[in-house]
């Protein structure tokens, strides 16, 4: 923590590796939230249909 983070430079974009990891992880979690099926309890399922 006492040394500066590494940086990725791409044209005018400059971002630290830790920030990139956090943003990448958030995009991943968001995608998973859309893809993964949401668990339904069996009792509500049977009462619904």
């Amino acid at each position, binding site marked *: 923590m006492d040394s500066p983070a590494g940086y990725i430079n791409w044209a005018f974009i400059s971002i630290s590796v830790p920030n990139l990891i*956090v943003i990448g992880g*958030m995009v991943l*979690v*968001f995608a*998973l*939230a*859309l893809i*993964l099926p*949401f668990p*339904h309890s069996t009792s509500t399922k049977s009462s*619904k249909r």
Partner: protein
Amino acid sequence: MSESIGTEAEVPSWTRATRDFIGKRLPLAHFLPDRQPAYVGSWVYVFGVATIASLAWVMLSGVILAFFGPQWWHVTGLGRFVNSVHFWSVQALFIFMVLHLWGQYFMASWRDGRAPTWMVGVVIWLVMIVTAFTGYLSQQNFDSQWIGVNAKDAINSSGGGAFFNVLNFGQMYGIHVMLLPIGITVLVILHIVQVRAKGVVRPIEGKGRGA
């Protein structure tokens, strides 16, 4: 007799007006629903609740830090642990809040009269950033001094220096532990009440199946 009740209803009353206002907008069954529409069965809706859960940990650890004070949270093992719980809960809070924001953005959840819900969300977001900033200034270490010294010029050049002295620990700490937490709590309660009053917004109509 029915006549007397009729005239009674004409008498202006703050209490009755408030009751009617709440009863119309937020009946108890809406306030505490035990069922939600089928489309709410998605992980996207968990982000809002995860934000509340993170906020609860932030508040709990923050109260303990305030009680025992800077000496304790820097020097003792338990103090450093609670300090870390506070810090990492804030990281979780911001991550879940932004994931929640993305979800509401892509669902365009401001539809059908829910714009105030979105706007209160925006205000929460802004207040949260100021809270994080004053939190960094309240650490009582070299890091907070560094942040304060660097931030003072920006604050002063914006005119904010007339009200805030970021090098004044007492002022920053008081704002961080007293004023902003109360503000956030009130705003989050308002946000949830707004969601409950309108119900979760219907999905955007599509042409494909299920529409």
